[in-house]
Each structure stands twice: as C-alpha cells, then as structure tokens.
C-alpha cells in the first residue's frame, strides 16, 4: 500500500510540484519509447513538445543571460552607471541579422554574417594552429623514449609511428604504392583500432543514457530501486 501511495502521490516529503513533474516526465518518456514499437501519434506529439520547449527555453535564456547584460543594460544603464554607447554597433548588426526575414532588406544580414564568419575564421585559425597543430607536433617530439622500461618505450615508439602512418594515409599527392602504400596500410590499421575504441566508447555512451532514463523511471517514478 505504501508503494501505491508513493507511486501516485510521491514519497513523503516530496512537494506537489515534484510529484506532478515526475508524472509529466514519465508520460513523456514513455511516449518517446513508444517509437520503438513503431512511429505513432504519441511519439509525434512528444517530438513537437520537445521542439517547442527547447526553442522557448533557448530564447528565454538568450534574452536573460546574453542580450540583457551585454546589450540592453550597457545601452540603457541604471542610474549612476556609464552608458557604453559603442555597443550600438553590435546592436545594429544584430538587427541587420534579423532583417533576413524581410526579403527586400535581407541583403543587409550579410554584413552581420560577414562579421561572425570573419571572427570565427580568425579565431579558429589561430586556435587550431596553436592548440592542435603546433602543440601536437611538440607533444610527439617530446614523447618519452628513454625512460619507463622496454614495453613503455616500445609502445611510445609505436605511437609515434602511428601518428606518421596516419598522416601518410591522408596524403593524396602520390599513389599509395610501394613503401608509401605500406606505410598507409599501417596507418589504416591504427585508424581501425582507434575507430574500434570509439565504437566501444560510443556503445558505452548510448547505454549510459538508457541507464539514466531507466533510473528515473524505476527510482523516481516507480520507487522500485532502493
């Protein structure tokens, strides 16, 4: 009987908001799982709710956490604080961006797009150059090869060869024949082992998500876990 009570009305100490919440969440969860049987209106309904809630959430957060502090407050500051007048420029670019909805003025949105694309291009170019390209070259060169015992040294040497062979595999200016082809074959072996590892990890990740949902259903909603 206590189980039935907990199931319907929530465990002692749970507020009505939480009890309602668990029920709504459980129904939505089951609606999504109904897709496993086949595509059906219940699943479509849940999917539409999903899209609606997600968009509303993002919009509200964008307003409260980005637009208000970064644009509205600097332009219309409270008493006694300086106005950052130059924030009018990104404000204009932001408005231009939204002009895409008006066909006659949509060409202005390219200004804003140009700004963002240029910024990302600059930032990513240096980020990848320093953080990935140069840093990984350095790390390969400083792989420890004189310490840690025979097995460790052998594995480190193998890793260095693996890096080089992988790069050779992605070399397109010569036919993969002869020695080059041989190295490329080694590269593909390294890639396959890495993809195998990825495969295993991905399986793990997907299963974890299911475990998370089942924990919710079995513990919070059905009170079957202790």
């Amino acid at each position, binding site marked *: 009987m206590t189980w039935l009570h907990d199931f319907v009305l929530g465990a002692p100490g749970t507020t009505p908001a939480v009890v309602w919440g668990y029920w709504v969440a459980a129904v939505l969860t089951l609606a999504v799982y109904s897709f496993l049987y086949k595509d059906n209106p219940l699943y479509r309904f849940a999917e539409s709710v999903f899209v609606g809630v997600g968009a509303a959430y993002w919009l509200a957060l964008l307003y409260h956490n980005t*637009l208000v502090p970064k644009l509205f407050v600097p332009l219309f500051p409270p008493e006694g604080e300086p106005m950052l007048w130059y924030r009018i420029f990104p404000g204009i670019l932001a408005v231009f961006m939204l002009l895409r909805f008006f066909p006659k003025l949509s060409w202005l949105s390219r200004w804003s797009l140009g700004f963002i694309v240029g910024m990302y291009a600059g930032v990513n170019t240096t980020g990848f150059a320093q953080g990935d390209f140069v840093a990984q070259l350095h790390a390969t060169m400083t792989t420890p090869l004189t310490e840690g015992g025979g097995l460790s040294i052998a594995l480190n040497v193998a890793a260095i060869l*693996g890096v080089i062979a992988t790069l050779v595999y992605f070399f397109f200016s010569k036919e993969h024949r002869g020695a080059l082809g041989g190295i490329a074959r080694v590269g593909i072996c390294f890639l396959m082992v890495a993809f195998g590892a990825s495969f295993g990890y991905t399986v793990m990740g997907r299963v974890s998500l299911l475990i998370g949902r089942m924990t919710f259903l079995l513990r919070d909603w059905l009170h079957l876990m202790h």
Partner: protein
Amino acid sequence: MRREIPLAITFLVGMFMLVDFFVPHTRVSAVGEEMKQWGTIVIAASILLGIGNLIRVHSKKIARRNTGWGYSIVCLTVMSVMLWFGLWPGERLGPSPLVGTIAQGSYFNWMYMYMDVPLQSTMFSLLAFFIASAAYRAFRLRSPEASLLLIAAIIVMLGRVPLGQLMTKGLPEKATLPWLTEAIMTYPNMAAFRGILIGAALGVMATGLRIILGIERSYLGGEK
C-alpha cells in the same frame, strides 16, 4: 556592393583576430576584447534567427494545413506558454517568483526540468536500443580492417566495465582487459587521433584563410 561590403567586413574582422593573437600590445588587446563582446551579441542574434525560422516554418505549415499541421500547433502552443512564463515582466503582475524568471522554483524552470530534460534524454537513449539491434544485424567482420575494428571494440567494451575486470582477474596485469583497454586508448587510439587532429587542423586553417581572403564566399549565399 551587396557582396563587397560583407567580404570587406569579413576580411577586416578576420585579420584583426589574427593580429590580436600575435600582438599583445594593450591598444590591440583592448580593442580585441570589445570586439569579442560584440561577437557574442551578433552570434546571439544569429541564434534568434534560427528560432524565428522555426516559428515561421510551423506557422506556414498551419496556415497551409500541410500534413502534420496539428503537431505544429502543439509545438507553437507549448513554446508560447513557456515563453510567457520565462519572459513576462513580473513587475507588472506584482512581484512573483514563479513567472518572468528562470530561477529554480519558477514555472519556467519546472517546464525545463520536467519536460525538456526528460524528452531530450529519452530521445537520445533510444540509440541504446538501435545500437544493440545493429550490433546483431549489421556489424560484420566483412574485411580485415573491419575485423580489426570489431576486435578492438570488443576489448574496449569489456575492458571498460567491471565485468571485464572480473573476467580476467588473476591473469598477469598486462593481460587483463582493463590494462589492454587503457593501452589501446593511450597508444594506437591516441596516435591515430593525433594524426586526424593534425590533418583536421590544417583543413580548418586553410578554410579560415580562404574565408578571410574572400576566396571562399559560399556562406554568403547566391547572388539575389
């Protein structure tokens, strides 16, 4: 002019970001910092654009009574209700902790925690089922490479869980599944991904260069 100005903006902003990376002089850094703050604002607007687009697509669907327009009504209704909770200026209704705020305990937060959270997590947990079914029906030792992949995958799958640890208990350490898994991750996996990383970095750098110099302009869309 409709293409030249955006290309010029891209060039100037992109070049400035490159300069900002190499030049620590305070004049450059100060301008750079404000530019980055501008960036967050314009990027926020681009997200607004995406959400606006969504509203437009669903409204059109309803207006034209396209198949599934009922679902579009559901979508827009839920969205409006949640936005009302999240954005309604609370002061006008009198101070309320429930509406017009995103704090813990508000209606907005409730809708997020009990509708968005379960829906998002459940959508992706479907994949556990699909992966299991594909494991039985589609993952095949069809070539030496695929076999190598699957063998590594099986070692990692077992080595990453306590069961695998139990299965090879008692064997010398370097033959246990957890050790083999960690070795795969640290050496061949690391090496291959480093190769991919270096290649991908070059790809991104080349694309960045093309964009900044205006050689790549497909992002601007067609000439209309």
